[in-house]
């Protein structure tokens, strides 16, 4: 039961909704300051020059429980959280969820997978994804016509 809560990728519907939503966010200004997380972990994404930056909230997770994969323009964050103390006699409230998770995000351009860097600090995973060379802006010189 708990496992289901954190495996949004189990349903293809959720997967495509996630991608559609990012597409919407990119091409239309959202009035609401925050979007409801479309999966776990919740993400903030922004563009920083020639790279995209993704910030994921992964409290309680350590590096050995996390995987970051990049293919083309898709970023996948997956992992497993199971940090309940031993010897529990009663569960009064369980809102944090446990089990394995996977979330895929489609970015507007291809990513240079070799140059991706990830950093985990205080439960925040920050991933810097430099754009692929082919996706970078190139200025085309316009020559005067003789």
């Amino acid at each position, binding site marked *: 039961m708990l496992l289901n809560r954190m495996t949004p990728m189990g349903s293809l519907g959720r997967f495509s909704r996630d991608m559609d*939503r*990012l597409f919407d*966010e*990119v091409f239309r200004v959202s009035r609401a*300051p*925050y*979007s*409801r*997380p*479309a999966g776990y972990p*919740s*993400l*903030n*994404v*922004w*563009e*920083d020059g020639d790279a*995209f*930056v993704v*910030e994921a*909230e*992964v*409290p*309680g*997770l*350590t590096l050995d429980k996390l995987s970051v994969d990049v293919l083309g323009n898709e970023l996948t964050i997956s992992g497993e959280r199971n*940090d*309940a*103390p031993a*010897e*529990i*006699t*009663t*569960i*009064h*409230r*369980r*809102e*944090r*969820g446990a089990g394995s998770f996977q979330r895929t*995000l489609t970015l*507007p351009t291809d990513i240079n997978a070799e140059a991706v860097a990830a950093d*985990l600090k*205080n*439960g*925040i995973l920050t991933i810097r994804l430099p754009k692929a060379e082919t996706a970078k802006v190139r200025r085309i010189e316009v020559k005067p016509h003789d």
Partner: protein
Amino acid sequence: MVDNAIQTNESKNCTPVKTETRRSWTPPVDVLETKDEVVIIADVPGVTADGVDVQIENGLLTIEARVEKRHDSEPTYLLREHGATTFSRSFNVGDGVNTEAISAEIRDGKLTLHLPKAEAVKPRRIDVKTA
């Protein structure tokens, strides 16, 4: 299943209080019980030990956690699902907890509170007087 558990007497030792404020976010919590203690685990990503304030007053346990600033200036977000600057949540703590001995620790953005159970509460005899 969880709702049923909340009805038990034991859980009166630690019941979350509804708080809805605009400025702070409500962190998700697990409230678990072992033989000797009640354990509260709260997800507070981006918070360090310096930013946590845990107080107990009149049986009300309050957690305040300040998120460390990560950006000098706010970026223009393509997607924005989180952005808490403060997490806060309160719990009613019953007599079954030894409030003097409550301890807290934070690691990887996960705050854990330990509420040791009090020694068995002694039964009280009520004197019955004749009218």
